[in-house]
């Protein structure tokens, strides 16, 4: 079967010019909306890209965390292998991280049961720490500054902490004075704890750490 095409329509020139007009007007409508779409794509890219980059470096180091009970650390931040996000966080905060050969800095913002540390509650931190030449335990306020208390004490070092007969220690954090190792909590707000182990063999292990050798953070009682 063959299909015959008419060699030429009688009004072909008229049709062709009409077609050109239609396609021209179509192109005109298209070109406007293409510009709008390009603008839309670029603004999506800028808003999402810059927004997500800002958000990713706003808080803590996003990758390479190791955990030990309530404590967590990002040891690779203090090494050659610091990831780009960690480098960006360092650029934003101006922090100088502890290098792996110097020690390991662990932070806690929750107690051992996973509840956020709050100045309204009292906490007991203690018993043992991993092997280290020195360690320091520091209490920070919601803004990340060492707490300013009337006793001018915001932490303990391993040398000055009072220990019991079997060598363990316990530090009580709270508003009310307690005998022994007591850290005065600020009036209100969230709390942060940092445990820094100086000259420790722990830093070489990259896997998750054994929580039993780290001090536990136990919530005692909460005020009104």
């Amino acid at each position, binding site marked *: 079967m063959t299909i015959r095409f008419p060699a030429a329509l009688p009004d072909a020139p008229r049709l062709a010019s009409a077609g050109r007009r239609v396609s021209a007007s179509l192109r005109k409508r298209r070109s406007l909306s293409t510009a709008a779409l390009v603008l839309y794509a670029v603004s999506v890219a*800028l808003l999402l890209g810059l927004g997500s*980059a800002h958000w990713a470096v706003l808080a803590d180091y996003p990758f390479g965390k190791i955990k030990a009970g309530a404590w967590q650390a990002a040891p690779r931040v203090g*090494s050659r292998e*610091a990831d780009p996000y960690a480098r960006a966080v360092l*650029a*934003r905060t101006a922090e100088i991280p502890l290098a792996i050969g110097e020690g390991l800095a662990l932070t806690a913002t929750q107690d051992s049961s996973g509840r956020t540390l709050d100045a309204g509650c009292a906490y007991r931190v203690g018993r043992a720490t991993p092997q280290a030449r*020195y360690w*320091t335990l520091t209490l920070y306020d919601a803004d990340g500054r060492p707490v300013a208390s009337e006793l001018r004490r915001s*932490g303990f070092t391993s*040398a000055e902490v009072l220990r019991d007969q079997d060598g363990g220690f316990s530090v009580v954090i709270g508003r009310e004075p307690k005998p022994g190792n007591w850290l005065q909590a600020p009036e209100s707000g969230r709390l942060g704890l940092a445990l820094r182990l100086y000259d420790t063999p722990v830093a070489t292990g990259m896997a998750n750490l054994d929580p039993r050798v780290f001090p536990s953070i136990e919530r005692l009682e909460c005020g009104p």
Partner: protein
Amino acid sequence: MSDPARFLFATLCGLVLAGIVHLSAVLAMPWLSERDAFSRLRPTLTADKSELVAAPAATDTWLPRTDPAVAVSACAYNLDEGPVRISANTGALFQSLSFHTKGGGTFFAITDRAAVRGVLELVVMTRRQLDEALAAEDEDEPSTDVRIVAPRGEGLVVVRALAAFPSLRGAAEDAAKSVSCTIDQPPASQ
């Protein structure tokens, strides 16, 4: 292409571009930042001694989340003018030196345990400067310097000294401040 399809295509393009923007912003941040540790310590480039960044229990420091038992000092270096010799006298206190590059990344750290007769002495140099030093060296009398190759020309040496008791805070501050970082003059050629 129909309009919804074109819109979808534009959204996809936007998302892909957003990924590129995100990655470039994160990668560029350490280089564009003017508030990172290196930029803040840039004035110490010419100093011969480390400068105190945070005294123990200091409240007036830009360094975030400081350890109140530790004195932190630093000096910035630029290896373009030659290798930098770092020399620290160690005492009874815990003391550590760490080496950071501009733009983040810590490439070396050492504690006072490695001190020889109470002195920690190191030379920071680029790979090229190390090659030159090795080439110029007398084979029978090799240098005893501890040489550290820095990945980049600009960086920071950070000194930490720990005061185990509040009464040692002054001593820790002095120890942190007394580290010398000078440009190592090449020995005069014979």
